[in-house]
């Protein structure tokens, strides 16, 4: 097993746990973005560049952006009841 593959697998395990254990949503969004990058690296080392691009576009850009949008809205929004 190549060192890169082992390393990126371990990194993915750690950053996934990091996403779960980061309980504060704003910081978690950053953790998700980082996790997306790590997964992108892992997929590259698994010889799946197509998937790596998608994961980076979705996991690192689109999902954290949506989460940030929601978090901003949660903050500014005062419910009536």
């Amino acid at each position, binding site marked *: 097993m190549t060192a890169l593959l082992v390393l990126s697998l371990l990194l993915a395990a750690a950053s996934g746990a990091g996403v779960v254990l980061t309980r504060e949503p704003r910081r978690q969004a950053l953790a998700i973005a980082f996790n997306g990058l790590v997964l992108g690296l892992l997929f590259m080392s698994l010889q799946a560049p197509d998937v790596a691009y998608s994961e980076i*576009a979705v996991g690192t850009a689109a999902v954290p952006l949506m989460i940030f949008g929601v978090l901003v809205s949660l903050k500014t*929004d005062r419910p009536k009841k």
Partner: protein
Amino acid sequence: MKRRARLVLAAVATLALVPGLGAAVAQLPRFGAHPLPYGEAINRVAPVERHVTNMVTAVNFDYRGLDTVGEEFMLLTAVTGALVLLRGRRGESVTDSAAEAPGRPIPQRSPALRLLCRCFAPVLLLFGLYVVLHAQLTPGGGFQGGAIIGSGTLLIYLGEDYRIWRRHMRAHLFDAMEAVGALLFLGAGIAPMIAGASFLQNILPLGRTGSLISGGLILIANAGVALAVTGGFVLLLLEFLEETRAAEPEDEA
């Protein structure tokens, strides 16, 4: 159930899972050294039969094209669902102009940032187009390219301001783009049936391997996906960002 009770129950259940799962894991084939008949067959036949060099694209748009049809319509479903959920309260009327949050200052962009974004946005757009167009040759395709273009439009937001971004991002346009993309892909499926072939069966010339115009019907399917994904992603981002600006809810029950 309280959180602690849930954890205890989940822990007990996980322990009970171990023997069965362990037996299966012990029998798993060795990583990276077991037969892959399906994938190998594709790697063998697709370059000859489809004149493409990216096998993932061949699988996505041709051999297992129906999965991608389902996938595109899944995106359509989710975007429509999110629109129902997010627009429900604001109503349709505000979607073409920026909603305002009273008392929210509009931050001024520094000229440097503006310049950076103005330079970078076209580059990203071009890169997205490149990724779309080279689907059959190199890594990438309609989905990846569409996602890049869709997210790239955010640079306008970052560099200019929200109003300008909204002015350029007409929701109707992207609605139509999404629907037309999906219809194009579906049409690529149905058109061969009219010609007497199967759904999504290639009836176009395949072109020369390695050229930009190769792969036959794959090109059309890919274009449909690119349109649908770009439209869908822009709409999603649009709606979520609109939420951050939405005025105080007045019309709630």
